[in-house]
C-alpha cells in the first residue's frame, strides 16, 4: 500500500492499493466515529474513504498535482509505462480543467515499467516520467498534460524532426539508461534532477536540454530536492544515503550508511534539514538530521545524525510514508499488512531541572515547564517526597533552629521518623550532661562510656524477683541478676530508664504507648504496675480485648509458672503482635537464658533506648560491651542517625553521619547536627565542613539568603564566631587618604559586611560627631542631594515627603537603611540611599552637577560586574 497526503488539503490523503486509488478524509476525535468504514490511524485520528476510483492499470508510482487549480488530481504511472490522471471530483462542475484532465492517459511509444513520476510545482502542466530502458527510446519524458498527443503528433509531422515526438512528450532525456527517479525543483521550475541506473544523477534544464550534468554514482534512487535550499539533493542507493550540492555536483557532500537497503526517502517539508526514510523488511522508520554549518569561507562537511523509530506495536514492514505538507513532523505511514499509521514524530528532547524544582524541556520548537506546584499529581507527589523539596520546606519553617528544645525540630520533619528520633536524643544528652542551649555537644557516646566496664569499673550484681505481690518463691530460685554501675546508670538515664522510672512511664503514657510502658514496668520488676497500665489501656484503646487478656495473663504470673499458665500463654502467643508484649513474656516465661536476652536486645522493632536500657540492666559486662559494639557497627554502616548516641561525636560519629548523607542525601540534618557539635574531631575533619558548605550552597541557590545568614550565625554560634570576615570596603578621606573609620576599636569586630563608617548605632545620643575626618579634620563628602556631610546625625530634617508619621518617628530613633550613605561605583558620587533612589526614579544621570554618569543604569540589576566586585567574589 502507498499513501500520499494531499498537498493542499490538510485532512485528505490518497491511498493506493493495487489498482484502487482511494481518497481518505482524516478526522480527529477521541471516539471512533459511527462509521463502519472508518479506520483508526492513531489514538485520536480516524480516516474514512471519501472517493474510491479504479485506475485502468496496476499503478507503480503516483504524484499529487501540486496545485488545486485543477481540482484533486493524481498522476499515476503504470507497469506498462502509461500515465493516467486520476481525479477525485470536487464540488460538481466547477472546473473545466478538471474535466479536461481527468482520466486522461499519456504513454510512451514503447511500453515498459514506469519508475517515477513528478508533477512540476510551478508549471503545473508539466509532468516528468521516468521509465525503464528501451533500446530505441529515451527513459525520461516530460509531458504537457493539457496538450493532446494528437496535437504533438500532428505538430511533429509538420515540423519533421524538431524534437517533438509522436507520443506527445515535450522533452526526452537520458538516452536508454533506465530512469529510476526524477524530481522537479520547486522554485526553479525549469530544472529537474533524475537518477539513471548504471549511470548516475543528472540535472536537466529545460531551457538548455542538451547539456545535462551530474556525477556517476550508484545513489540514483529517490532523488529529491531539499525544500529549504534548492541546492541540496538527497538520493540513495542500496544502503547508502547521499547528499549532493548541485553547485558542486561532481562529488557528494555527505553520505551515510544504514544497515539495510533503503526503500524510500523524503525531505521534511516543515523542518529544515530533516530526511525521513524506510528500509526494506524492517518496521523501523529512520530520520536523518542533516547538520550543516554555513560559514562563508569554510564550508564544513554536513553531518548526518540518525534516529530510528519503530512504528506500531507489531513488527510490520513499512511500505511507504508521506510527510504532512503543513503539520510539523506529522507522517503517514503504511505497512505491508495494509494498515496506516498517523504518526507525530517527536523531536529529540532536551531537558533541565532548575534549582527550584522546575523541570523544563524543549521538544522541537516548543518549550514546556513543570513547576513544583503546577505539575500533574504523580509528579508533584514524587517531587514532594524528594529530599530536595522537603529540605526547602524545612528550611522555610526554621528546621534545626529550635535551639532550646531540640525535639521541636523533629516536628518539622513531616513524618520522617527515623531521622526525627535523633532530636529527642540530643535533648537527652544535654540534660544528662547538664548542658544548656549555649553549650556545644561533646558527648562521647554510649560505646565509649561502657568501654571501660570489664576492667576497672565496679559492677554490682543484685538478684531481683518479679514479685507480683506474692512472696518470693521457694529457695531454689535465686532470682534474676541485675547489674548496676555508675556507667550503666549514666547510660540508663540517657535512655530514660533511670531508676525513677515513673517519669518516663508518664511520658510514654501520654503518648499512649501502653505496651511499651508495660514492658518498662516489667523490666523494672513491677508487674503490678504493668497490669494496671494494661487495664487502663484496655479502657481507652480499641484493642481492649487483647489488652485485657494480656493483663489477666500477666497478673496470673508467679515465680514458678504452672503448666496451666504456660499453656494459656502458648495459646495466646499468636495473637501478640506488639514486640514489647512479646518481650515481656519472653523474659517472664523463658529461662532468662542468654539467648532470650540476646533476642530481645537485638529486636530492632523495640526502640533503641529500650534496647540499650534493657541491655544495661540484664547483660553482664562482657556481653553488654559486645552488644553495644555490634549495635554501633550496625547503625554506623546503615547510617541511622539515632546511632550517634552509641558512637558519640567522634570520628565514628562522622562516619555514621556520612553514611546517612550518602544514603538519604539529607545534608541539611547533617549540617544542623554538626552546628551543635563542638568536638575536636568534628571541627578538624573536612567532612562536616563539607556538609555545611553544600547546605549553604543549596540555600543560596534558592535565594534563601536570609535563611543562609541565619544558619551561618547559628552554626558559628558555638564555635567562637566562625571565620572572621575581613572588612570588605574601607572609605578613605578625600584629603588625607586615611580611613575615615573614626571609632576604630569597637566596631571592627561586630560589623560583618557592614560599611564600617556607618556602624549601626542603636542610640542617637551616643553618635559621636563624625562629619569630619578623624585624622585631618576636613569635612567628609556631602550627600549629592541634601548637601549634608556624611556622618552627620540624620535624625532631623531627613524626612522625605512620602514618609508617614510612623516612619518619621522611626527615623528619629535609628538610622534606617535608606539613610545610609552610598555611592555610585563608577563616578563615586553618592549620598543617602533614599535620596538617591528618589532622584533616580526620574533621572538616569548622576545628581552631581556636571557628572554625566548613568549611575542607576549601571547598577541596574546584576548587569555589570565591576572589577571591584569580581575581586570580592573570587576572594570568597
Amino acid at each position: 500500500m502507498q499513501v500520499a497526503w494531499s498537498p493542499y488539503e490538510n485532512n485528505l490523503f490518497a491511498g493506493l492499493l493495487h489498482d484502487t486509488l482511494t481518497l481518505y478524509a482524516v478526522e480527529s476525535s477521541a471516539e471512533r466515529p459511527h462509521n463502519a468504514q472508518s479506520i483508526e490511524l492513531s489514538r485520536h485520528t480516524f480516516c474514512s474513504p471519501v472517493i474510491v476510483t479504479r485506475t485502468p492499470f496496476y499503478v507503480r508510482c503516483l504524484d499529487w498535482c501540486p496545485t488545486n487549480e485543477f481540482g484533486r488530481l493524481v498522476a499515476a504511472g503504470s507497469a506498462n509505462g502509461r500515465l493516467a490522471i486520476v481525479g477525485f471530483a470536487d464540488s460538481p462542475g466547477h472546473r473545466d480543467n478538471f474535466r479536461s484532465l481527468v482520466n486522461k492517459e499519456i504513454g510512451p511509444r514503447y511500453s515498459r515499467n514506469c519508475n517515477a513520476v513528478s508533477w512540476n510545482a510551478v508549471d503545473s502542466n508539466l509532468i516528468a516520467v521516468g521509465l525503464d530502458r528501451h533500446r530505441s527510446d529515451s527513459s525520461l519524458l516530460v509531458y504537457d498534460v493539457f496538450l493532446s498527443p494528437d496535437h504533438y503528433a500532428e505538430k511533429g509531422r509538420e515540423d519533421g524532426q524538431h524534437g517533438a515526438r509522436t507520443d506527445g512528450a515535450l522533452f526526452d532525456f537520458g538516452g536508454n539508461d533506465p530512469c529510476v527517479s526524477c524530481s522537479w525543483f520547486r522554485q526553479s521550475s525549469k530544472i529537474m534532477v533524475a537518477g539513471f541506473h548504471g549511470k548516475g544523477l543528472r540535472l536537466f534544464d529545460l531551457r538548455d536540454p542538451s547539456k545535462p550534468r551530474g556525477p556517476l554514482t550508484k545513489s540514483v534512487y529517490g532523488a529529491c530536492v531539499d525544500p529549504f535550499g534548492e541546492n541540496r539533493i538527497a538520493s540513495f542507493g542500496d544502503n547508502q544515503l547521499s547528499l549532493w550540492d548541485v553547485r558542486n555536483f561532481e562529488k557528494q557532500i555527505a553520505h551515510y550508511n544504514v544497515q539495510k537497503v533503503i526503500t524510500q526517502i523524503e525531505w521534511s517539508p516543515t523542518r529544515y534539514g530533516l530526511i525521513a526514510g524506510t528500509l526494506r523488511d524492517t518496521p523501523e522508520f529512520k530520520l536523518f538530521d542533516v547538520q550543516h554549518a554555513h560559514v562563508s569561507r569554510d564550508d564544513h562537511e554536513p553531518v548526518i545524525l540518525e534516529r530510528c523509530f519503530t512504528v506500531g506495536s507489531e513488527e510490520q514492514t513499512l511500505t511507504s510514508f508521506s510527510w504532512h505538507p503543513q503539520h510539523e513532523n506529522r507522517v503517514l505511514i503504511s505497512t505491508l499488512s495494509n494498515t496506516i499509521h498517523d504518526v507525530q514524530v517527536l523531536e529529540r528532547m532536551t531537558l533541565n531541572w532548575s534549582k527550584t524544582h522546575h523541570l523544563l524541556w524543549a521538544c522541537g520548537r516548543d518549550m514546556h515547564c513543570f513547576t513544583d506546584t503546577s505539575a500533574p499529581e504523580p509528579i508533584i507527589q514524587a517531587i514532594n517526597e524528594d529530599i530536595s523539596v522537603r529540605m526547602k520546606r524545612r528550611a522555610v519553617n526554621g528546621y534545626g533552629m529550635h535551639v532550646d528544645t531540640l525535639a521541636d525540630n523533629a516536628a518539622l520533619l513531616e513524618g520522617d521518623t527515623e531521622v526525627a528520633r535523633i532530636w529527642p536524643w540530643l535533648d537527652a544528652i544535654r540534660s544528662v550532661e547538664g548542658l544548656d542551649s549555649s553549650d556545644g555537644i561533646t558527648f562521647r557516646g554510649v560505646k565509649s562510656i561502657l568501654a571501660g566496664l570489664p576492667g576497672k569499673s565496679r559492677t554490682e550484681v543484685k538478684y531481683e524477683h518479679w514479685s507480683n505481690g506474692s512472696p518470693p518463691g521457694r529457695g531454689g530460685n535465686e532470682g534474676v541478676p541485675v547489674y548496676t554501675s555508675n556507667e550503666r546508670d549514666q547510660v540508663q538515664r540517657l535512655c530514660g530508664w533511670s531508676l525513677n522510672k515513673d517519669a518516663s512511664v508518664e511520658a510514654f503514657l501520654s503518648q499512649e504507648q501502653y505496651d511499651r510502658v508495660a514492658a518498662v514496668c516489667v523490666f523494672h520488676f513491677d508487674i503490678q504496675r504493668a497490669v494496671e497500665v494494661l487495664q487502663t489501656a484496655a479502657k481507652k484503646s480499641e484493642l481492649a480485648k487483647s489488652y485485657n487478656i494480656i493483663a489477666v495473663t500477666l497478673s496470673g504470673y508467679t515465680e514458678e509458672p504452672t503448666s496451666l499458665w504456660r499453656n494459656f500463654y502458648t495459646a495466646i502467643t499468636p495473637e501478640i503482635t506488639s514486640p514489647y508484649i512479646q518481650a515481656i513474656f519472653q523474659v517472664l516465661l523463658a529461662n532468662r537464658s542468654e539467648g532470650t536476652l540476646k533476642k530481645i536486645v537485638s529486636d530492632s522493632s523495640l526502640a533503641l533506648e529500650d534496647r540499650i536500657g534493657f541491655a544495661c540492666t540484664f547483660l553482664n559486662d562482657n556481653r553488654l560491651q559486645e552488644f553495644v559494639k555490634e549495635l554501633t557497627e550496625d547503625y554506623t554502616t546503615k547510617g541511622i542517625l539515632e546511632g550517634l548516641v552509641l558512637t558519640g561525636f567522634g570520628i565514628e560519629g562522622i562516619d555514621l553521619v556520612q553514611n546517612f548523607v550518602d544514603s538519604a542525601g539529607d545534608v541539611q540534618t547533617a549540617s544542623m547536627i554538626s552546628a551543635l557539635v563542638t568536638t575536636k574531631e568534628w571541627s578538624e575533619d573536612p567532612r562536616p565542613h563539607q556538609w555545611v558548605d553544600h547546605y549553604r550552597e543549596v540555600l543560596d541557590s534558592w535565594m534563601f539568603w536570609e535563611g543562609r545568614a541565619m544558619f551561618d550565625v547559628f552554626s558559628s554560634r558555638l564555635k567562637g564566631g566562625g571565620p572572621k570576615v575581613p572588612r570588605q570596603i574601607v572609605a578613605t578621606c578625600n584629603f588625607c587618604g586615611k580611613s575615615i573609620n573614626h571609632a576604630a576599636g569597637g566596631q571592627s569586630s561586630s560589623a560583618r559586611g557592614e560599611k564600617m563608617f556607618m556602624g549601626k548605632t542603636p542610640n542617637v545620643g551616643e553618635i559621636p560627631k563624625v562629619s569630619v575626618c578623624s585624622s585631618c579634620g576636613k569635612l567628609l563628602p556631602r550627600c549629592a542631594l541634601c548637601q549634608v556631610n556624611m556622618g552627620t546625625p540624620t535624625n532631623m530634617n531627613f524626612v522625605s515627603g512620602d514618609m508617614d508619621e510612623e516612619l518619621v518617628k522611626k527615623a528619629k530613633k535609628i538610622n534606617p537603611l535608606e539613610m545610609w550613605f552610598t555611592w555610585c561605583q563608577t563616578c563615586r558620587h553618592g549620598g543617602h540611599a533614599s535620596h538617591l533612589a528618589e532622584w533616580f526614579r526620574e533621572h538616569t544621570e548622576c545628581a552631581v552637577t556636571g557628572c554625566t554618569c548613568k549611575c542607576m543604569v549601571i547598577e541596574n540589576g546584576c548587569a555589570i560586574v565591576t572589577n571591584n566586585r569580581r575581586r570580592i567574589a573570587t576572594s570568597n
Partner: protein
Amino acid sequence: MTSDPRSPVRRFVEEENSSPCEIMSICLPVPTDHKDLIHDVALDYYGRRMATCSSDQSVKIWDLQDDGTWRCTANWKTHAGSVWKVTWAHPLYGQLIATCSFDRTAALWEETVGDGSSVAQSHWVKRTSMVDSRGSVSDVQFAPKHLGLQIVTTAADGVIRIYENIDQSNLSQWQLVHEISSKFAGCSCASWSQSRLLPQILAVGSYDEAPSTGKVVLFELVDQGRKWIKIETLNSITEPVHDLTFANTLGRSFHILAVAAKDLHIVSITPSVKRSSSASNLHSNQQSASLLTQPRAYDIRLLALLKDHQSTVWRVSWNITGTILASSGDDGYIRLWRSNFTSAWRCVAVIRGDGTLQTEGEGGGSSNRKLSNSETLDLSHNAQSQNFLSGFSLPKTASPALTFQKWSS
C-alpha cells in the same frame, strides 16, 4: 538602589504561598519562537533565568516573571551553525553564558548594560571565541566555582580542551590550559564533578561508533591542578554516549554520574577511602609532590541500568540534590527516576514530550485496537505503564546481579 520591591527573598516567600488555582494547570508551555529545533535549555544558578539555543543559530535569554511566566529579554544570532549547548556561569562571575556550535567554535557571552534607552532588551556581548577545535564543538561546561572561571569543551575531533580566564578583570583573556586527547573519533559531552572535597573528576562521553569499547572516560585533576590524568574507562558502556552529568555531591562521599547512551546508566564513583581520609591536607597544602601526581584508586559501581525508554536516551538532568533524575529518550517520553531506600532506581513518572502525562489508556490497551495503535512513535509501553501505575514494581533493570557489579577497567 537598595530597596528593590521585587527583592528575591520576598519572591521566595511568595512562591511558597502560590495560589491553589495554579495547581490545576498541567503544563506551562513557553512559546519560544525559535525557528528551528531547540537543542538545549539551561537555567542559571537561581533558576530565575533561562537560556535556550537552537538550530536556527540563535540563543534566547528568558527571565522568570513574578507571575511564573518566562519573558524573552534577549535574542541574538550566536553562531554560524546549530548551537548545541548553552550553559550559565556561577553568578559570582557575573552574567555569563557559554555556547558551542556546529561551526567548530565555542563562545563566551556577557550581559552588558545598554544606554538606558531600551530596558527591555539586554545586550549580550561576545567576550571570546574559542576556535581551536577542528570539528563541531559538542559540549561546553563551566567548571565548579572553586576551580575559578574555567570552561571545558568537547569536540568532534576527539579533543577535550580546558580554557581558563587568567585575568579576572578581563573576560576576553582566555588561555587554553589543557588539551587532552580522548582517543575517540569524537566526543559528545563532558561533565565536572561537583565536590570541593573529593578529587576533581571530569567525565567525557563519546559518540564514537567503534563497537565494544568503553565510551565514557574519567579524568582526575592531579598535581595541584596542573595535570589531568585518565583514571578509568567505563568499559561496560559501549554504545555511543549522548549526554552525561554528575549529580550535585551534596556532602556525599562519592560521585553519582548519569550516562545517556542506548540505555540509561547510573554510576557511582567512590574515591578510595585511604586517600580521601587523608584529605585533611586540604587545609594544609603541603603534601609530597610525588603523591599528588598520582591518581587515586576508585571504586566504580553501576548503580542502575535502566532500559525503560527502549530507545536511545538523549539527555539526562539531576535535580538540585541529585535525588531525582530526569531523562529524555527517542521514544518521545521524559522519565523521572528516584532511588528508594534500598538504592534501587525506579521510574516515578512518565511525561509525554508535549507535556501530557502518560495514562493508563495509552500504550496499555492494544487488545481492542485492530488496525493500528501508534500515536507517537513508540513501542508498546506495557512494561512502563506498569512500572508507573503500580507504583512500586521493581524495575527489571535493578536486578541485584547488576547493582553491585564491579566495573572491570
